[in-house]
């Protein structure tokens, strides 16, 4: 279980990294925290000719804030988000999610951008960013483009990132002080990838009412009808709608899996409802 031979380069700037990636025939792959790619290299499931290690590019660690939104650099680690290395504008959601990712040893090295780029449907950030309505900032030879997080996954382990592109940052809306969120995942054991994820975000001031089912074996699913019901009739009603909506939009999944997704979503809504009554 040792990797096949590969070259290793460590660019110091974004243009340098882009240049290294631009030659598609070079079969280069971006390396950040290595928490998914490392095992895949060892199992020889990933066989890049060249690893481009982007951890020394300072620009990819930037946090930028304006009135309504903020952006976080792609190579910030889960642990940095967990520990509050930068100010939190998510009313605690991002640190909460970070704390539940794998184990601390993984969080110390794994990066938010790396996890998103890896596009594992069961990964926490994939669901969280889609639920919150984040935007992926993608850098490539043709310059910069933006992709809504909810559309970022094409399928399991496939994203809209091109072979020569690189995720540089994630832009998120700032949640107001009145925002409520619920995040629930079904895991068989601590640190394991989730069997089902439910996310609810409600911020009336910002007009956000979003309910999402994640770890669906593909792109996470925004539950539009549940979100509408949340906005108009509240979390308890939305919980009833969510189960029905999941049955409708994910008919291809095993009944047991749909059941777990419904429970995860309902429990994320329940958290909102509990917070409301406090």
């Amino acid at each position: 279980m040792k990797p096949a031979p590969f070259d290793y380069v460590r660019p110091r700037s974004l243009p340098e990294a882009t240049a290294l990636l631009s030659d598609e025939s070079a079969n280069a792959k971006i390396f950040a925290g290595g928490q998914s790619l490392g095992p895949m290299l060892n199992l020889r499931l990933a066989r890049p000719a060249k690893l481009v290690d982007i951890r020394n590019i300072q620009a990819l660690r930037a946090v930028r804030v304006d009135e309504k939104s903020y952006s976080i650099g792609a190579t910030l680690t889960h642990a940095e988000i967990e520990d509050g290395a930068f100010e939190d504008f998510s009313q605690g959601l991002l640190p909460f999610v970070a704390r539940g990712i794998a184990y601390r040893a993984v969080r110390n090295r794994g990066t938010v951008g790396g996890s998103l780029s890896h596009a594992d449907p069961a990964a926490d950030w994939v669901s969280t960013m889609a639920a919150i309505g984040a935007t992926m900032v993608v850098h490539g030879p043709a310059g910069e483009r933006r992709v809504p997080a909810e559309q970022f996954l094409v399928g399991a382990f496939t994203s809209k990132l091109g072979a020569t592109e690189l995720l540089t940052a994630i832009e998120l809306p700032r949640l107001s002080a009145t925002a409520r969120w619920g995040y629930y995942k079904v895991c068989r054991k601590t640190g394991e990838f989730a069997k089902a994820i439910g996310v609810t975000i409600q911020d009336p001031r910002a007009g956000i009412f979003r309910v999402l089912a994640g770890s669906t074996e593909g792109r996470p699913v925004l539950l539009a009808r549940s979100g509408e019901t949340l906005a108009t009739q509240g979390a308890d009603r939305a919980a009833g709608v969510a189960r029905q909506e999941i049955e409708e939009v994910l008919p291809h999944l095993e009944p047991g899996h749909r059941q777990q997704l419904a429970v995860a979503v309902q429990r994320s809504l329940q958290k909102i409802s509990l917070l409301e009554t406090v």
Partner: protein
Amino acid sequence: MASEGIGARVLRKEDARHLRGRGQFVGDIRIPGMLEVAFVRSPVAHALIRERKKPAGFENSVIFNDDMPGVLPITTRSSIPGYKVSDYPALAAERVRFVGETIAMCVAPNRAAAEDLCELVDIQYEELDPIVNCATGRASGVKPLHDGWTDNLFLRTSFDQGMDEVIAKAPVVVELELSTARQTMHPMEGKGLVAWWDHRAGQLVVHTSTQVPHMIRIGLAECLGIPQAIIRVAAPDVGGGFGYKCMLMPEEVAVAWLAYTRQGAFRWIEDRREHLTAGANARQHEYKIKAYADERGRFLGLDADVAVDCGAYSVWPFSACLEAAQASGNLPGPYDLKAYRCSTFSVATNKPPFAPYRGVARPGVCFAIELTIDAIAKAVGREAWEVRLENLVAASAMPYTNVTKKFYDSGNYPASLLEVKRMIDFDRIRSEPRRDAKGRYLGVGFATYTEQSAHGTKVFAQWGLPLVPGFDQAHVKLTPDGALEIKAGIHTIGQGLETTLAQIAHEQTRVPLKDIRVVLGDTANTPFSTGAYASRGIVMTGGAVSVASEIVAGRIKSIAAHLLQVRPEDISFRDGAIFAGEASVSYEDVGRAWYMRPDQLPDDVDRGGLEATGAYKPQIDSGVFSYASHAAYVAVDAETGLVEILDYAICEDCGTMVNPMIVDGQTIGGAAQGVGTALFEESPYDDNGQPLASTLIDYLLPGPTELPRFRISHMETPSPYSAHGLKGVGEGGAIAPAGALVNAINDALAPLNAAVHTIPASPERILAAIAAAKPTLNDAA
């Protein structure tokens, strides 16, 4: 001085190096010029090998079966009539029978380069239909996996006593179909070895991670066709064995052959993927049970059909039929059962060979019999613990010979059950609501088992194994400076023998524990032992150390008596010295007199000196029976299928405890593996015989957060038949958790009328059980 002998809760001598990361495992050994080996393994479950090609320029670095003329396959013969023999080659020749079977050995300066080389080897396969489960493998007309076999079973056995009478008149009949998943064992350290040629000694030196170094020497010599005297097997630190390291492996034969023929140093270190997909498989049983009882739930008879998914080849020396023999012999468990019928089928399948894993068959049979007891209790409308209590062999019946002629030497099984019922606070649980504040269903479950330990010569001979253990031996010596050296051929695999054997020697000689060194597991300098398996170490080697220490203690007394000018019977050991009245000499004085100043000793001094080899086996070969009861209290989330263990109580009795802390450690470690068996671990195969759990993402091991705080209480019933009343304790913890936990889950699910009969009790299985009991999912909430 605080006691350091038998019964003392002293810290483990071996922990200082392990806690500092200074142990020396196979992977830590460096021999100058050492090359690494990686294996080309079959990607298909069943195929003929049509063509094999080495990459140009690497003819010498790639080894195929026909490059090893004279090397014999691993063949486990058995004296049991009807047992069919399989030839398990170090490298496959014409045919492969499981995914992961070794086909070629690639040698390179490092593992990555060796794996690169593996990719260049070209093997062409002609695929054959695989046999991937017991049902297919035992069906009549299936083409056997091995040439010359008449059917596809390694062995079929049947036992029948008194059933016909019972079937006719039993008022209560309970039927169950149960199955247990295939598991892999996962010691922290996988398998591995370094083999090199020692020019000075003229010996092939094999440092292998093993429980049984002396047996491995015998096995290697047989396969390589060379004298045992030119092989030295020296086991370094071993990071867990669990049975995986008590057998000769093809990789061991291949790498030893390489070192022997090339007179160089080579190593192979198993990686986790090899362990998961090609390494020792275990535990997979299928049961069809029909139990007969009276209206109170008293067992009248038990009828069982047991199939073991044995994989493609027999392991050496424990054979492909040990599991079924243990299953058939142990299914009646700790219960007073007069009528019993059991048929076993050891089915050959296209999977890695089945190996004996901690508990050997008993985690499966305990699961089976304990679920049966609960099913009987349900059928007669009583609490399961009451029915269990009524069926357990009573203390007054000890010693008790059970229906399969197992001789339960001593103990009070009902008392252990009542103790865990008290510990788990059963009456409080029953007085409280069946659901907690989160809506989860609560349940409590019990399991009681016996653990045959240190069974000896006659038992193994009966099982027809090629290597039968006799007397274990140990050598004890007082050094010139008054310290004690113990040498024994068994090996320590994490179970604390460096400490417990020293405690036994201290018990006899009173040499301070810090001055006692224990050397184990090296064929060059330890007396023969078949090794560490079957929970035998503390009884067998402990007994041998006791015998040898007693002899040396007597000689110490004689020399001390001479030095003090008293009679030997006036000598006593006290406070780390040797006394006659108030006069004393030190152990060093005695050592110095014998080794350095023999001129001070009389002419008729015992010429055996201050060293002795002792040999031991218990008064009975049938083993001494430890036992325990486990109780589990769980919460089941009926919406997600997740189980939380709220409390877990164990009451165990392993006879006299040499070191209660080590007994606790063995119990906790075993129980942790039992939780894995009950809830998490599963190595499924698809219809093509491909293993689906190839990383630890797919194969779930319980971690610290999944394990309860096991609460343990001890009973101590010394065996009347073993030295110091010792019984083995290595395997027991792993036996009961599946029974106790699944009984607890089913107790929790009782209001939903659902029950799980397959382990691990995964969320999917629990949800499916609930769905099967209720037509729509929505009602479950």
